């Protein structure tokens, strides 16, 4: 049974309003189910509960916002089901549109920042090493735990908001130091060094990794020391799509893993899994569901495209124009910077369709006729067939650009052979 502090008991008793009391009751009961015996104070939250799944989610958010109470800690918001800046883009009926809008509005009324991005860590929300936080959205959880070293479990719909309102989370799992120690070593030293220098490697490796480790905490040995933040983002997003990965360590790179032993809490994990270039080539092949040449659209930006990724895209484009729709999903914050730097007109002229506040895989944006979608994202590749009905082809960003210029799938195979 969970033990509450006097302040937590006061919250539960409704001394700070009915919405905080409801949040505290839900949190306490969930914490019990998760096996916690106390709650821990958090310093920030990222809420994933603003995506519309049905009217119940709206009712819940409006119940919390009704008494005018605000979140207790700085809180960012994940994507909603609408692109609020480009309202015509999402195909939806009036009821769903209105409910999705109300759900997003309720979280803003609760005092959350309307960031509407699945990459809050690239929108200025960067907790420090060892900070206790409560984050939702699987890729954001993997990033904040692994790359920033802050501490959170995977919080989904409802619980994320309850944590934000009460400023508490169940003290269990990855909130505890020992829960973060690697119990598994993934040895990637045999993989071609040339391949590991490319962006295309990381979503594929992440997909393999998630399927191989599931919910375990693993430390990876043999990734380059100069691995970029966007590469780690791609790895985590793919790993948390194919498995329940909430934390991974990269020896010599991520903050809790100066070396393999440190990541394991002072000892080398007993179990080791080897990964080879051949394993990864199989995974890459399985990320695509078709071998068709004809291409109907490209979508990138899962997680949301960063400024650095836009710079990469600009240098690949060289001002040329796409012949099929090229969707880039990004945060409104990134769009604003592109606009203020005068980079937007050239990107728009090349045929890029900007999607903000949401993405093409969680809400109906792609043309209904279906077809073949190409992406550089492991997460998009994973969810596209079921969520959109499109066939999917995985390729690097350079492959996506080259293919979208001609309308025919072209991939540089040399790296994978």
């Amino acid at each position: 049974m969970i033990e509450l502090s006097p302040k937590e008991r006061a919250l539960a008793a409704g001394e700070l309003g009915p919405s905080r009391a409801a949040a505290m009751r839900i949190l306490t009961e969930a914490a019990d189910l998760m096996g916690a015996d106390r709650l821990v104070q958090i310093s920030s939250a990222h809420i994933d509960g603003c995506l519309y799944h049905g009217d119940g989610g709206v009712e819940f958010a409006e119940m919390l916002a009704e008494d005018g109470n605000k979140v207790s800690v700085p809180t960012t918001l994940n994507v909603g089901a609408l692109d609020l800046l480009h309202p015509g883009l999402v195909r939806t009926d009036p009821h769903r549109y209105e409910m999705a809008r109300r759900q997003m509005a309720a979280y803003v009324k609760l005092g959350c920042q309307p960031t509407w991005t699945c990459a809050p860590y690239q929108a200025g929300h960067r907790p420090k090493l060892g900070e206790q936080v409560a984050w939702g959205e699987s890729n954001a959880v993997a990033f904040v735990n692994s790359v920033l070293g802050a501490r959170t479990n995977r919080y989904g719909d409802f619980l994320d908001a309850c944590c934000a309102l009460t400023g508490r989370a169940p003290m269990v799992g990855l909130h505890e130091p020992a829960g973060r120690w690697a119990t598994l070593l993934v040895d990637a030293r045999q993989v071609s060094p040339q391949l590991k220098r490319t962006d295309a490697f990381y979503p594929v490796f992440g997909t393999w990794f998630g399927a191989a480790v599931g919910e375990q905490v693993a430390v990876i040995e043999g990734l380059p020391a100069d691995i970029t933040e966007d590469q780690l983002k791609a790895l985590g997003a793919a790993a948390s799509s194919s498995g329940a990965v909430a934390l991974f360590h990269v020896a010599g790179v991520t903050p809790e893993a100066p070396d393999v032993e440190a990541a394991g809490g002072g000892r080398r994990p007993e179990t080791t899994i080897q990964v080879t270039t051949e394993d990864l080539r199989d995974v890459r092949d399985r990320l695509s569901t078709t071998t068709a040449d004809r291409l109907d659209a490209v979508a990138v930006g899962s997680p949301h495209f960063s400024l650095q990724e836009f710079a990469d895209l600009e240098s690949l484009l060289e001002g040329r124009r796409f012949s099929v729709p090229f969707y880039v999903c990004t945060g409104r914050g990134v769009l604003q910077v592109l606009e203020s730097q005068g980079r937007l007109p050239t990107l728009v002229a090349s045929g890029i369709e900007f999607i903000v506040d949401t993405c093409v895989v969680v809400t109906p944006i792609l043309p209904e006729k279906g077809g073949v979608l190409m992406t550089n994202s492991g997460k998009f590749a994973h969810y596209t067939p079921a969520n959109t009905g499109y066939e999917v082809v995985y390729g690097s960003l350079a492959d996506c650009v080259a293919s979208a210029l001609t309308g025919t799938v072209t991939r540089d195979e040399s790296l994978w052979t």
Partner: protein
Amino acid sequence: MTNRFGPEIVERELFGKVVIAGSASGNILRLSAPISFWGGIDPETGLVSDPRHPDFRKSIAGCVLAIPSTIGSSSSSAIMLELVRQGLAPAALVLGTVDAILVLGVIVGRELGYRALPVLQIDQSRLQTLPQDVNARIHDGGRITWTA
């Protein structure tokens, strides 16, 4: 089994650990594979909607739903809430392992004023002894009874 008075009626029972208290009755549907409610159950109809699931197209509404194990999508709580809200939830849940995300949907539903369904936890091996499509009662305190 029969005796000279006709078929022998035997009352069977199992005891589960109470996760959410309550009583209920319904026909047992014991799923034959793990399920993710998000992407696996249609919240508009209460039917198993994942074509790869062996219980595809079966209805979970109003039954005593026995789930050996779940696949943890964090959106499953939202689907559970939708089912509760629309009256399409199972009469009771019997879980092999407690999935906090799924149960959270029931807890939030109760907080919003919807009927809370009883949730029990029972070992995988004993869960597998629940017969399919037989009417069962869930009693306060975690007792499950049916006649065989």
